[in-house]
Every structure is written in structure tokens, then in C-alpha cells.
């Protein structure tokens, strides 16, 4: 028998009020921790996948959408840009000196919800230079390199072939005539690379020259041309290498790129490039840092409201601990006085009551953590299904220790007044009654 044991039994003997306090406490702690976990892991993923990209140049539309589609591969692309316009960034005498390097991206196809990205080898180097160096990346048209997660989840091996689908939906129409061949699989990088299928720009161009079956108003004009190409293909025994030697229309956005990732040599680029692009081209620029901050701010309104709600719930749970202890003192005043008779000091009884508050706080905290990490696992599953992004439900943050300290403080404060009342009780008066 000791104080911890005794306070534990005192909590168990009033299961209803203990349950109420615990549920409230767990809910409050759970919501706050879950918000923290999501915030932390989303931001971490965002920062890691940003990989130092200073600016994204793409077709006009929502800049946030451009960032989301080109860097994070979440949203739909804004459209395409022509090669001629894209070349301005690297060639124009006023712009080129500011730019250290660019990486072109061509999007629009997917395989079983995993996005196919037409790009250059430097895109892989951007995220993992070791992986880029140690993997035999795609070298010809229609060759692809898979991200680790793609290969694992779809159980694909090097040498296998598959048909990509137009668009990003699982049920989308697939380009059944031209198979993509897997030449390599990247090791796990814990970046967006893991969930991508990488190939060269021309492969994407070739895939889109296929005859379109669905009637997209945008694609209508292209259909005719596509059809001609197809005829040509059949004669050529599907040799896309041949096809790629055809001249590319520099002014046709359809044969161009989706976007360019731009890295500046000097911070001046951040000012000069947007001005120039907006005034002289049909393209737009988007700064990832600015746009993601805007995104956090938009999410922030919702999370702030939730966080306030969580604090209110925790406050109420503290109140419930207080009321429950306060009420129980009426029934327990004799037994507490009796404990003094048996040798307990005032201080010991004070600690007993504080301990009862603390115990609810600690249990509530543990339940809250289970709740939040369980919630994070569910969120992770949903994010995975929708965007192929995976989060870790059971990764812990050091901030969770601060929440523990906060929880302990609430437990102590809630028990303080009842504990002081017990401390001050006159045993003789209580027992003499």
C-alpha cells in the first residue's frame, strides 16, 4: 500500500466521473496533438520536396495550383507552355544570367494513380544525388524509372511493361498501343520521387500523340493531327525512336512542357523573373515559399478554430476533475480524517488529492496520444489514397513532452483547491461530529 496505489483505487471507485474526465482530457489532448502532428509532417514533406526550387514557371492560372502540381504532384497542372517560351528563361540575355539551372517537367499521365513525370536526370539529382548516380536512369523514349513506392505497391520489376493512362484518375483511358518499359527502380528517398514514374520529356509528348478517344474540347483540334501520326506509327512498327526524330513544333504548347523548375544564381531573380515573364510571355511565375505560406495561412484559420476548441475541452476536463474531487470530499472527509489518525500528515493527504488529479491527467494524456496517433494513421491512409503521400502515424514529436507538462499542470491546478481543503481540515472537528 502506498499513495499511488491508494489514489489509483480512489479513482477507480468512481468510474463514471473518472470516465467523463478522462474522455474530455483525452479529446482535448488528442485534438491538439493531432493538429501538431499533421502540421509538422505536412510542413516537413513540403519543405523536403521543395528541394531548393526558387520559382516555378508554367501556364497561366492559379499560382498555388502550379506549385502544388509541379513540386508536390498533388493538384492538376495549370496547362502547358510552348518550348519557345520555355527557352526564354535559359536564353534571353536579360534573364539567363540570373538563372543557375532549370528542370523541365511534362505532366499529364499516370499509371494506377501514380503520376508519370517527363523530365531530365537532374530532377532525380535534385532530391537524391546518390540515388541518381547509382541508378541506371531512363535513357530512351518509352523507358521509365520507378520511384521506390510505386514499384513496391504495384509490385513492378525492371524489364516489365505497362500502359499509362491519360489524366490522373485510376479509371482513365489508357494508351494501349504504346507500352512503357521499366528500366530501373530508385531506392527509397522519402521524397516525392518515391511516388513518381519518371521518364524523358519526349515520352510524354509521344503518349499524347496517340489518338484521343474522349472528347476534350481542348484536344479536339489536336485529334486530327494525332490521327495522322498514328497512321505513320503503324507503318513504322511502333518505333517511337523514329517518331522522336520528327521536328517538334516549338510554338505548340501541346508539344511543350507543363512547367519549369527554376533555380536562381542571385536573389535578384526573385524580382526580375516574375516581372519579365508576366510582361513578355503567356506564362506565369509562382514562388513556392510564398504560395505554401499562403496555403498554411488558409489552413491556419481552420486549425486555429480547432485548437481553440481543444483548449476549451481541456479546460472543461480540468473543471470536471475539480468538481469530481470536490464532490467526493464530502463523502470522504471521515476517511481522510481517519488517515490522519492513522499517522498521515497534512502534507501526505494534500499529495494524495493532487496525485488523484495528476493520475487523471496522465491517463488522459496517454489516451489522448493514442487518439491523436491513431487519428494520424487514419489521416495518413486517406492522404495516401488521395495523393499517394504517406505520413507516419506513430512518429512522436518532442513537443508532445510539452503537452505532457501542460497536462500535468492542469491536473495539479484542478486538484489544488480540494487538496488545500483537505490540508486545512480539522480532524477533531470532523470526527467529533
Amino acid at each position, binding site marked *: 500500500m502506498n499513495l499511488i496505489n491508494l489514489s489509483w483505487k480512489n479513482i477507480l471507485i468512481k468510474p463514471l466521473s473518472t470516465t467523463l474526465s478522462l474522455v474530455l482530457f483525452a479529446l482535448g489532448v488528442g485534438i491538439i496533438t493531432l493538429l501538431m502532428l499533421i502540421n509538422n509532417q505536412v510542413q516537413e514533406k513540403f519543405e523536403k520536396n521543395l528541394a531548393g526550387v526558387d520559382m516555378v514557371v508554367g501556364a497561366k492560372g492559379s499560382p498555388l495550383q502550379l506549385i502544388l502540381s509541379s513540386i508536390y504532384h498533388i493538384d492538376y497542372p495549370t496547362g502547358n507552355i510552348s518550348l519557345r517560351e520555355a527557352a526564354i528563361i535559359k536564353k534571353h540575355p536579360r534573364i539567363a544570367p540570373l538563372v543557375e539551372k532549370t528542370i523541365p517537367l511534362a505532366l499529364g499521365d499516370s499509371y494506377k494513380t501514380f503520376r508519370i513525370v517527363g523530365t531530365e536526370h537532374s530532377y532525380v539529382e535534385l532530391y537524391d544525388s546518390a540515388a541518381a548516380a547509382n541508378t541506371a536512369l531512363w535513357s530512351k523514349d518509352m523507358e521509365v524509372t520507378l520511384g521506390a513506392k510505386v514499384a513496391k505497391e504495384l509490385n513492378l520489376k525492371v524489364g516489365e511493361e505497362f500502359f499509362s493512362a491519360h489524366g490522373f484518375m485510376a479509371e482513365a483511358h489508357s494508351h494501349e498501343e504504346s507500352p512503357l518499359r521499366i528500366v530501373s527502380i530508385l531506392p527509397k528517398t522519402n521524397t516525392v520521387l518515391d511516388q513518381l514514374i519518371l521518364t524523358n520529356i519526349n515520352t510524354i509528348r509521344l503518349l499524347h500523340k496517340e489518338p484521343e478517344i474522349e472528347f476534350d474540347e481542348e484536344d479536339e483540334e489536336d485529334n486530327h493531327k494525332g490521327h495522322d501520326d498514328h497512321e505513320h506509327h503503324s507503318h513504322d512498327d511502333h518505333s517511337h525512336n523514329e517518331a522522336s526524330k520528327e521536328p517538334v513544333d516549338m510554338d505548340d504548347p501541346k508539344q511543350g512542357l507543363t512547367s519549369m523548375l527554376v533555380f536562381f544564381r542571385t536573389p535578384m531573380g526573385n524580382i526580375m523573373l516574375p516581372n519579365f515573364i508576366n510582361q513578355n510571355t503567356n506564362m506565369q511565375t509562382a514562388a513556392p515559399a510564398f504560395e505554401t505560406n499562403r496555403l498554411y495561412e488558409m489552413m491556419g484559420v481552420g486549425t486555429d478554430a480547432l485548437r481553440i476548441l481543444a483548449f476549451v475541452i481541456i479546460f472543461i476536463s480540468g473543471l470536471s476533475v475539480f468538481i469530481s474531487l470536490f464532490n467526493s470530499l464530502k463523502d470522504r472527509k471521515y476517511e481522510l480524517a481517519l*488517515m490522519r*489518525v*492513522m*499517522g*498521515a*500528515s497534512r502534507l501526505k493527504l494534500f499529495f494524495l488529492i493532487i496525485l488523484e488529479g495528476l493520475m487523471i491527467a496522465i491517463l488522459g494524456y496517454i489516451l489522448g496520444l493514442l487518439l491523436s496517433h491513431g487519428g494520424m494513421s487514419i489521416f495518413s491512409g486517406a492522404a495516401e489514397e488521395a495523393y499517394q503521400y504517406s505520413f507516419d502515424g506513430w512518429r512522436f514529436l518532442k513537443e508532445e513532452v510539452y503537452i505532457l507538462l501542460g497536462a500535468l499542470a492542469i491536473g495539479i491546478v484542478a486538484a489544488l483547491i480540494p487538496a488545500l481543503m483537505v490540508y486545512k481540515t480539522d480532524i*477533531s472537528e470532523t470526527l467529533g461530529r
Partner: protein
Amino acid sequence: MLKTSQLSYSYDKNNTIHFPDINCQKDEHWLLLGQSGTGKTTLLHLLGGLRKAQNGSITVTGQDLSQLPSSQLDAFRGKHIGIVFQQSHFVASLTVEENLLLAQYLAGVPQDKTRIKTLLSKLNLSHKLQSKPKALSQGEQQRVAIARALVNSPKVILADEPTSALDDENCKEVVELLESQAREQEAALLIVTHDQRLKDYFKNQIILTK
């Protein structure tokens, strides 16, 4: 073993109770008889150190209670004085055995389950070891309260109206228990009561008057 001199207590200026001197030796059993209003409970609380006397002194096993600071007084009481109250109260969340273990824990003596088992079997309560106090009859509760007062082998046993709520049969049983256990532990026993039934059991008696 238990000695008082010139003891008096005032609740207010016009209401001071003077108590006769008590000198209770080891192994002696005393009965303090008095009607209500004679300060019986006050005296017992003073003797047990639950209340501080304004005048006079109380010495238990050679220790002047007024010299002890509050927390040491609590510890001293837990170790050396066993008290049985008219109404037996227990820690409701604990079983009979745990209540006795708690008495040992709070007094700062080693927790000894064998001691508890022997004691309870002497009081015919072995089968109630794992019962919650609420589930016991009043007579059983009073016997457990006695067991709790005895569990640390105190030098002085104080009992406040231990029998007034009991019927004749239980009354006799409780008095005999208190006497036999006090004798076995060579403790001083002091019973404060208005219960006239107890007169015949004790040769040492003090009558309290207003």
C-alpha cells in the same frame, strides 16, 4: 503509560472543561464514564493528539504531546496510539486487508500481511479479508476498526463509545475483544463512554462531570 495533569480545554471564554488527572499504567484498563456534554469526546481527542490542549499536559509513553510539531504528532499517533471510534469509518475504495495495510503504511511500519491475517483470525474476520468495508455488518465493522487500532501494536488504545451503537451481544463481544487484545499487547486501554453496560467490566473508573 498515559498521564495527564491539570488538563482543561475551552471552546470559548465562558465554557472551559476541566478534566480529572489520569494516570493509566501499562496493562491497566480504565473506563471514563460521563453523560453527554461532559467533554468525553474532547478528552479522547486531546489524549489522541487530535486536538491540542490549551492548559495542562498529556504524556504518552513518556512523550509530552504538546512538544510535538503537527506532522511528528501525526506520526507518533500512528505508531503508538490506536483509536477506535463510535462510528467506524474506512477508506471506502480499499478492502479490509488494504485498510489495515494502509494503517501500517501511514504509521511508517513495515507492511506485514501475515500480521494482518493473524489479527483478523483472532477477531473471527479471516473470511472478510477481501471484502469492502461497506459489505460488512455493523458489528463486523467495529471489529475491523478494532483490528485497525491494534495492527501496529500501539502502547495506548483509546476507544470512544465503541459499544453504544451495538446490541448487547455485540457489545459484550467488543469489550472482551478490546480487553483481551490490550492484555495480549500489554497496552494501556482507555474507554470513554456513557454506556452503563460497561460498568461491570472495569474496576478502574473515572466519572466525568460537568
